[in-house]
């Protein structure tokens, strides 16, 4: 898959994360936000009543728009959580 990361920036060790059942490569020290963006995800959830798409907005933990389920815990902020090896992320964008 096309990787959006800037190649000239040095990265730490490679790890694997699982997003909606699919495995992706990520780097240690990245936020879930960065890893999902690099993997091509834009819509992270839909609002419950109007089903409007929500994605990355503030990127600094304030807006609560980038909520995803991480290792079974719902409503976690992708931008404030660091990736871990074998982290399981679920995006409910139905």
């Amino acid at each position, binding site marked *: 898959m096309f990787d959006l990361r800037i190649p000239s920036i040095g990265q730490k060790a490679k790890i694997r994360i699982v997003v909606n059942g699919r495995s992706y490569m990520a780097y240690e020290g990245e936020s879930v936000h960065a890893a999902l963006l690099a993997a091509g995800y834009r819509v992270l*959830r839909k609002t*419950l*009543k109007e089903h409007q798409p929500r994605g990355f907005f503030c990127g600094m933990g304030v807006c609560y728009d980038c909520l995803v*389920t991480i290792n079974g*815990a*719902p*409503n976690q902020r992708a931008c404030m959580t660091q990736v871990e090896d074998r982290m399981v992320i679920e995006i409910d964008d139905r």
Partner: protein
Amino acid sequence: MSLMNSQKKQIPQTDTTDVVVIGGGVIGSSIAYHLARKKVRVLLLEKGNLADGSSGACDGMVLLQSKKPGIHLQMAIESRKRFARLREELPLPIEYSECGGLVIIETKDELSAMQQFVKEQREMGLNVSLLHGDHARQLEPQLSKHILGATYCSLDGRVNPILLSLGFALGAKSLGARVITGAGVYHIDTAASNLFSVETEAGRFEASRVINAAGVHAPEIGAMVGVDIPIKPRRGQIIVTETCSPLLNHCMISAKYIAAKFNPAIANTGGEGTSIEQTESGNFLIGSTREFVGFDKRTTADGLHRIAANTAGIIPAFKQVGVIRAFAGLRPYTPDGMPILGPVDDVPGFFMAAGHEGDGIALSPITGELIAQMITKGKSDIPLDDFQLSRFDTENEAKEATNV
């Protein structure tokens, strides 16, 4: 809000109507709605605001499985049939959905109790099935491994209790009923024959029929006409979680809940069980305690901790879900777990419609319909004999005899 308009100021000193309904919860509002449908002049009096008592502090489950096989279950079956129509008919979106319900069985004792319960329910024509643990987990993958089984009924559902209650009241109003809030009743004069004079904070009202739908406060209203009503407030604390994507397919209660409801001794020793419902907005309502603490509506750390522990035992995924708040409501408990409905023998023209404990939301449609029939025709499609206040008389007499 249009429900709370300035009617109060326009009311003259004494005001006459056909029927006064006391209590603007889901039961009183449903009665007012059904009477208004029959073109009866009805006045709904509420001491605070609509649905700000028990009807606004409860969960919204419409369960058939939790009802005692017999007339209680028959009422619930009939009541459920009316929700789909009400969803179309009432002026507010009541968020009714038939999600199906599971009763969670954790111990062998519960299993044998539920086997008997299911057998009796099936004899009454309710399509309930008893599932083994693995089968239950197929239906509801989040169920814990230790669950022995579950009973399942596809007809169980849920509704938004506040919207239902307000929907009845608003519906009644649009059909010509009058709704007055801030009208606490403090005296009922029965001196005149065939006429009650109801004195309230919002003026005096005369009617030939008075319906006591005051829920946990029904005994206070009863005392005003010299009637002893054995309803007691039973506190239920409920936890509200953050909104989540749909995590569960069904609403569920634990078998302990059913046991606790019909046997207070079990509630004290075996725990209160749990009820779990995901609302349309995605929050979970998790309940509930069953405590006799008078009119105290506070939540307690101990009570909430018990609910959380019980629930996380059944659905381990809940350990990861954040709690945003908690509330408590008072359920109108009666000694035999059944509501008190229909005319009161000693006071002609005075009717009871209270004491549903945790079933008020589910039974509100049928209760309103049957009470409206009693008022207009003097009889109801389902006889209310088993729900009469007088069923407690022998008990009271026995108590008096021992006191002497």
